[in-house]
Every structure is written in C-alpha cells, then in structure tokens.
C-alpha cells in the first residue's frame, strides 16, 4: 500500500468510525483497530495507540453538546476515573507483556459482547435509584440534569462495585484501544442506577481521560505513527460532526443492528487471527 493510499484509507476509516460512533453510540475503536490491523496491516500495539487517539477525539468532539445540560456528572466521573485511569495504566503495562494472539482473542470476545448487547432490548430505569447509598451521600454524587426545559433530580447507588468494574474497563481500553463505553454505561446504568442519558454523557467524558492515560504511554513508546494517527483524528472529528447531523434523518436503530452484524463478522476474523487460523 502506498503512503498516499494508506492516508486515504485511514481517513475514510476515521470518518466511518466517527459517523458510527455518533449514530449508534458504539465506540470508534471497534472500527479503527480491525481496520488498521486487518487492512493496513499495522502491528497491534500501533493500531491500539492510534485508536486511543481516535477515542479521545470522539470524546472531545461530542463533549460541547453536554456542557451546561448537567448530563455529564463531573463529580461522579472524577471518582470513577481514579479506578479507570489506574486500570488504564495497568492495562498499558500488561498489553506490552502478553502475546499479540491473546490480545486478538480478547478483542474478538469484546466485539462479540458489544454486538450482542446491541441486539438486546434496552430497558432503561428512567426513575433511577430511590435513595443515595451512604458512600454516594458522603461523596455528594446525586445531581440533576436538564430535560425538556425542566430539571430532573436523581440519586446514586452502587459506587463501590462500579468502581471495581471501572478498573477492568480501563484495562480493556488500554489493552485494546477502545473506549470501553459499553462497560462503563453498563456499570452506571445497572449498578449505580443512573438515568441512561446521564450514564452515556458521563461515560463520554470518562473515555477521553481513560484513553489519554494510556495513549501517552503508547506515544512515548514510539507506537503512534503520525501518518496514520493524524488522518484518523481528522476523520473521527469529521465523522462525528456528520453523524450528529444525520442522526435526525437516518433510522438509527436499524443502523445499530446492521453495524452489530458487521461487528460479529469482524469479531470472528479477529478470533481466528488470535487462534492462529
């Protein structure tokens, strides 16, 4: 592949990742890492390093929409971020000490899990938790968000178990170059019983910081080739902008399912690579 063709391919891949991320909520890492490893044939650590920058771009691109809405619970994000960033540092270290085949296997399994979650009906607990847990009270995590002109107050529970899950989510993010948003939202939605919109916006804030923790590690180990990372960042920002506009006119639910089917096929390809087939 010539350098020019490579730049065009990764730019297009970045746009696709940004559009899919904006439309379906599934992270760009699930598009970028397979593209860079299976199509561009980049070594996995470099694909992960580049993808983490794409994840930060996704987070930054979406963040201005949430400022002032109260949807992103910054206090909660900071508390959970201690766990996620610790996990990310650990994950970056572990990723450099385990066989690449094992990483491909883990990636394939995480992709399959994300795809399956996309097919399951989403039953969100709009009422939220009935009362704060003692730890949530001490940390002042209850808050409110703006919805249809009014403010909705909510309580928080399950801080400790969610903290534990965030360590794992941070590790996976650093090892595989993904945002791990699917795990973060799951912990906040099901364990902490936050309103879904709050979970999604808080997770978006967190994925950027988690990715920055480990992306610095990859960059300082010379695993972020600028000729690949720069077009990916540009593409993701552009794609997120386009996706935000197309959200109103495209059938998002159907797109999410189509993307999940594609994810399954790519996951099988990654698993086979992991098994050495």
């Amino acid at each position: 592949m010539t350098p020019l063709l490579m730049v065009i391919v990764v730019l297009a891949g970045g746009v696709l990742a940004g559009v899919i991320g904006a439309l379906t909520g599934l992270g760009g890492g699930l598009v970028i890492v397979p593209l860079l490893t299976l199509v561009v044939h980049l070594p996995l650590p470099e694909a992960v390093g580049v993808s983490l920058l794409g994840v930060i771009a996704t987070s930054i691109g979406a963040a201005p929409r949430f400022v002032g809405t109260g949807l992103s619970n910054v206090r909660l994000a900071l508390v959970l971020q201690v766990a996620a960033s610790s996990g990310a540092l650990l994950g970056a270290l572990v990723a450099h000490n385990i066989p690449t085949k094992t990483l491909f296997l883990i990636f394939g399994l995480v992709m399959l899990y994300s795809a399956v979650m996309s097919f399951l009906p989403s039953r969100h607990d709009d009422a939220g938790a009935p009362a704060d847990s003692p730890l949530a009270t001490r940390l002042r995590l209850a808050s409110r968000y703006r919805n249809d002109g009014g403010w909705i107050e909510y309580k928080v529970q399950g801080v400790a178990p969610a903290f534990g899950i965030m360590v794992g989510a941070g590790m996976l993010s650093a090892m595989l170059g993904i945002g791990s948003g699917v795990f973060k939202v799951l912990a906040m939605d099901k364990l902490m019983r936050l309103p879904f919109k709050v979970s999604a916006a808080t997770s978006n804030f967190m994925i950027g910081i988690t990715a920055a923790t480990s992306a610095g590690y990859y960059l300082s180990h010379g695993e972020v080739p600028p000729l690949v990372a720069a077009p990916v960042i540009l593409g993701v920002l552009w794609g997120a902008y386009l996706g935000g506009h197309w959200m109103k006119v495209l059938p998002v639910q159907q797109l999410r399912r189509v993307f999940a089917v594609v994810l399954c096929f790519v996951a099988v390809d990654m698993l086979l690579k992991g098994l050495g087939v």
Partner: protein
Amino acid sequence: MKERLEAQRRRITVVILRLSIGLAVFSILVGLALFLARGAVYFPRTPSGRIDQILIYIWSEARALRPSAFMDAGILVILFTPLARLVSGVVANARMRDWLYVVVGLLVVGLVTIGLFTGETGI
C-alpha cells in the same frame, strides 16, 4: 457566587474544547498539505521518548517544515485536551473551596501524567 463560578467553569470548558479541536485540525491539515507537497512519500515515525523529549524533537522537525512535526503537534493537542480539562476543573473546584474534589481531581491528573511521562528514552 457559586452559580457565577459554575457558569465561568462551563465557558472555560467550551473554550478549551473548541480551541483544541480547531488547533488540532489546523495543525493536521498543514501536515497533510506538506505531506502532499513533498510528493506523498513515507516518513519515519516519531521516536520513543518522554513527552518533553518528543516536544523538543517536534520543534526541531517543525523548523525544517517536515510534515510529521505538524501531524505530531495535532496529535499532542488532542492528547493533552483531557488533561487541560481536568486541570481547569481542579482550579474551578479550588475556587469553590470544594477540597474533596480538588484532591480527587489531582489524583486523576497524577495518573494521566504518569502515563505521559513513563516513556522509553529512545531519542
């Protein structure tokens, strides 16, 4: 007073985010333009090293108008944006005398900084 500080915090956050996106996109576009102008030939990747060493390397490459320097600059802007947002949050919490979240914020800043400064000395 608290509402005024909160509004100020929101304004600063939006400025950081928009400025970062603008700077990164501009820098990457300059890098891509130079890449095309120089015949779209492959260039070596940024060597490993601590972020401060990489910054010095980028500066020397930028003076020679090498495309990789501008692309790397855009990458670093994106990489440092979450940290800038965190630091501005810590300052805002300190102004509101919310010491618990000053400490929690500093802890996260510390963890992100460790990730940035644990590179190999390859330069």
